[in-house]
């Protein structure tokens, strides 16, 4: 991924904080370059150190970044729980970043406060990657989702994409839908009334001219859908347990429901799943959720290399 004007990597030295910072052209160039990182294991990041700061727990993102760094010959330092960092002793986030920047070449941060990654990026000259800031952004999740969509469907436009489940709180869905407004697609939003997409995101879709519809019934919209992006409905979002019981299985996708839809739908999920995707779908050819996990490493290898300004050999 290089700038045509300068020949230098477009994201070199940049931060990856929010998908809102990335243009359509940069996104497409990134996805092109990322595909070259599939199965790529040359030690091009030898001698580079990733400072991995997880102020709240994460399993897949943390392991996925570590795997990406190790597969390219780099090293990882950091912590996986703020209880073991100086934050527990009252050290401010800015101070933590100012200290850690002396130990590494690139910073990865997950933090419960929204905007923490942006603040971290403003506190250091090193590239900073946002691995999730509260309910705000998780840009590498969006990148790997887009990568998977293009891998499975061969394009990012002229698709019918249904989002199902918790559309109110899911940052994954918000970020992916907003980024998809760069492209011409038809979006279906399926959720219980209490978990509808927030108005500000619908306004954004309207402003960008994206065609979308909202529904509570999955089967009323499901025919001819290309992508089915399902999300976890979390019990803690429901003050009334009875309400949760009503909806928890309403958006459960299984082999029978996929056969009822017909066609060749690609089923995606950011994982971990609860009951929303039946295990009898795991060997369905269109199931892409484990591919998403694999693509996460590919995409993160590309992100680390590009931000560090290191080209493939």
């Amino acid at each position, binding site marked *: 991924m290089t700038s045509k004007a300068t020949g230098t990597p477009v994201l070199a030295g940049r931060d990856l904080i929010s998908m809102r910072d990335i243009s359509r052209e940069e996104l497409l160039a990134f996805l092109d370059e990322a595909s070259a990182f599939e199965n790529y294991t040359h030690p091009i990041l030898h001698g580079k150190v990733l400072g991995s700061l997880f102020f709240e727990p994460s399993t897949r993102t943390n392991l996925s970044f570590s795997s990406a760094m190790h597969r390219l010959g780099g090293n990882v330092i950091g912590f996986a729980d703020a209880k073991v960092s100086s934050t527990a002793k009252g050290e401010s986030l800015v101070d933590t970043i100012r200290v850690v920047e002396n130990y590494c070449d690139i910073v990865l941060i997950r933090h419960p406060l929204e*905007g923490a990654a942006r603040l971290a990026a403003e506190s250091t000259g090193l590239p900073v990657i946002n691995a999730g800031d*509260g309910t*705000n952004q998780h840009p590498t999740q969006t990148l790997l989702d887009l990568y998977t969509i293009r891998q499975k469907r061969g394009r990012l436009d002229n698709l019918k994409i249904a989002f199902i489940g918790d559309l109110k709180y899911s940052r994954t869905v918000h970020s992916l839908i907003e980024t998809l407004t760069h492209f011409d697609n038809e979006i279906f939003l399926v959720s219980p009334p209490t978990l509808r997409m927030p108005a500000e995101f619908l306004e954004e879709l309207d402003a960008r001219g994206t065609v979308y519809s909202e529904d509570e019934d999955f089967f009323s919209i499901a025919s001819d859908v290309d992508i089915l992006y399902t999300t976890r409905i979390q019990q803690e979002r429901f003050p009334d347990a009875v309400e949760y019981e009503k909806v928890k299985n309403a958006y459960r996708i299984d082999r029978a429901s996929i056969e009822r839809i017909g066609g060749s739908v690609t089923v995606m999920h950011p994982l971990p799943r609860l009951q929303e995707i039946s295990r009898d779908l795991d060997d369905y050819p269109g199931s892409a959720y484990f591919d998403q996990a694999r693509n996460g490493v590919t995409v993160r290898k590309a992100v680390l290399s590009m931000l560090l300004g290191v080209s493939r050999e």
Partner: protein
Amino acid sequence: MSEQAADPRSGEKRPAEARAAVPQSGDKQIKVTALREGTVIDHLVAGTALKVLTVLGIKFEGAVTIGLNLDSRKAGRKDIIKIEKREVTPEEVSRIALISPRASFSIIRDYQVVDKFTPTLPEQIENMIRCPNPSCVSTAPWMSTKFTVLRTDPIRVRCHYCERSLRKEEIELL
């Protein structure tokens, strides 16, 4: 209450506010004293004048005249404020624009309107708005807040940190 001052370029000295009567329903009019030095903030959204006064602070050297819920040809209803011996600063203008984007400002010197303008918001607003998101990192007491102006009318801003977008009614000034 529109400005009745002579064209400042004419050199003719006429009390800017001498004929600044506020048309009301029927034939009744409110007479307002002429302003020698100060600022007139007109076309405020009805009901916002008191909020604008808090932006300007409560200590004034001269008289302050407030008109609430007056007839307006443009907006139906409007508020207006006249402040004696006080000119607004650019920062105050930006703050007031967040409350009332279509407000107009007239700067009066020696009974003349020497400047009249409507506010334009900068692309980025620093340290003027409080982010209402309790999970936003900018709510820490030592942090500056920063907002990007997405739209001006109706106003819509986005927090630089948590990226939450706020409508006019959600905007709380610092």
